[in-house]
């Protein structure tokens, strides 16, 4: 469990994270969403004690992480796949990490095999692709078998097979009762990965809810109607409480009524329909419109 309380980080006049309060719970995959520069990475670094908050604080399982002498058995983190020395082999890199935390060196080869790097273990990391470095970072996060895992944009650079594997891994880690916190700037990635969403924009909390609640609230549905008798149909629908946007003389977009109801109303009034199509706007566009206006949302108002 990660408890973030009024967390704030300022760099001079810039506020990277602004009074962020939220809780990341065990047993679920929590997506941490926000556009580039929203403060996701800064927040993750403060969770790990790498950056000191200007105000507020954060605890992991009730304790500030920076106060622990060794970290790998408490939190496994992949912040940036590039946070390695390219001159070392993957095995040497993980061996140093394992040794520092008194983790048996046998875990190193286990972890490398788990992420599919068994054959590349002896090669210099500098020659790895981004996807391979992501896998190495994930292996490092798993070394200590920790109850809390943090991943900053872990899907970057992974091939489709790798993306599927990572999603399965996150699911399994959460099902084992661990806290899994995954950041991303792409809603499309999180839609298939996360159970809960914490959305931030310009360092402030915009949404903290389950993925289902988020889609119910933000994904608007509309119905496209093509008819030679758009004007009388629009009249009928407006009386029923719908909004009709006339796009072309014979084509409109209706919100506020389901497609079935529109069809029934057209039949009752003897109006011809050429096309009737239900549309659901994607979560991605909902996320984009939400974060585009992030300044207008104070932390508490989103609820």
């Amino acid at each position, binding site marked *: 469990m990660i408890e973030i309380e009024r967390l704030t980080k300022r760099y001079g006049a810039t506020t990277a994270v602004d009074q962020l309060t939220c809780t990341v719970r065990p047993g679920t995959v929590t997506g941490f969403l926000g556009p580039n520069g929203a403060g996701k990475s800064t927040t993750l*670094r403060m969770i*790990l*004690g*790498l*950056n*000191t908050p200007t105000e507020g604080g954060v605890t992991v399982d009730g304790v500030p*992480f*920076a*106060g*622990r*002498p*060794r*970290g*790998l*058995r408490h*939190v496994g*983190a992949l*912040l*940036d796949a*590039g*946070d*390695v*020395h*390219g*001159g*070392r*082999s993957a095995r*040497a*890199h993980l*061996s*140093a*990490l394992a*040794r*520092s*935390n*008194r983790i048996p060196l046998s875990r190193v080869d*286990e*972890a490398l*095999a*788990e992420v*599919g790097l*068994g054959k590349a273990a002896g090669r210099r990391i500098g020659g790895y692709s981004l996807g391979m470095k992501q896998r190495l970072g994930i292996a*490092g996060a*798993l070394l200590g*078998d920790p*109850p809390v895992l943090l991943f900053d944009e872990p899907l970057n650079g992974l091939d489709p097979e790798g993306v599927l*594997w990572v999603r399965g891994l996150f699911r*399994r*880690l959460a099902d*084992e*009762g661990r806290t899994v916190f995954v950041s991303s700037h792409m809603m499309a990635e999180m839609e298939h990965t996360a159970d809960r969403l914490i959305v931030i924009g310009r360092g402030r909390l915009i949404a903290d809810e389950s993925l289902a609640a988020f889609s119910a609230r933000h994904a608007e549905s509309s119905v496209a109607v093509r008819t030679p008798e758009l004007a009388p149909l629009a009249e009928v629908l407006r009386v029923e409480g719908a909004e009709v946007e006339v796009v072309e003389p014979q084509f409109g977009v209706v919100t506020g009524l389901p497609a079935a109801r529109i069809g029934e109303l057209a039949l009752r009034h003897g109006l011809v329909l050429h096309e009737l199509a239900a549309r659901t706007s994607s979560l991605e566009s909902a996320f984009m419109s939400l974060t585009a206006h992030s300044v207008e949302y104070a932390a508490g108002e989103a609820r």
Partner: protein
Amino acid sequence: MSTMTLVRPEAARAAVEPAPRFTDLLAAEWIKLRSLRSTYWVLALASLVAIVVNINAVHSDLTYIDHPPARLPGFPPFRYDPLYHGLGDIACYLTAIAAGSLGAITVFGEYTTGLIRTTFAAVPDRRGVIAAKVLLIGGITALAGAVVSAVSFFATNAMLASRHVGLSITEGVSLRAVLAYAAIVPVCALIGMALGALLRHATASIVSLVLLFFILPLMFGGDRYRWLHEIGSHLPLSTVGRLTYNPDSSTTTSKWAPSVLDSWITMGVWAAVAVAVTVVVVRRRDV
């Protein structure tokens, strides 16, 4: 893809965490150092070259000892100084810059690659990490310094024994000179670590090392202003010159030369300040 399960079920995970040990951090730093060939090669190669340079210097001098130059009027007779030639400046500068660079690289290397974040996420006890680094780098460079100094001293004086100008380690200031010639190497490494931690940038760290070791002494020489001269004689490499100075030689020193104790303290203060700067800077700063 492997079917092995890395992640153990909840029950198995409840196992108690073993107590943290400093030796684990030391071992981890040793793995890091050992797995980057370029870094320790720098030190090994510089040490070897330094020994060769010292031996070659004395070897070339044998001719002059056998055929001493004619005595100049008003000067004392030619007297060969085995300390000045056998524990030479060039070899000292070489090991100094190699050790300083090694120290700087081990610190700025973690920052410039971003590895420092991975390191501190694994070991939040930053003081432990940096203490292990200081101890390891200090120890290895001390060993290199001891080897260079001892081999240079004994090899060159063995060569000089046949000319009856060689010194034994118990004679005169030999022991002090050998110790100082060795001790400056880890001190330079610690200064390198401090600069690496302060600047966190490869070029800036190395340039500032060169400035401190080689350029500043040139700017603070002279015999006109005492305070300028005093600054110069308290720079890191100036201490070696004073501590290896052989009073039985015909070489003269400045009228403001510091005492032997003064130079030992200066060397110690440089080391202590370097360690303090490294620890404080690394602990305080965001990474």
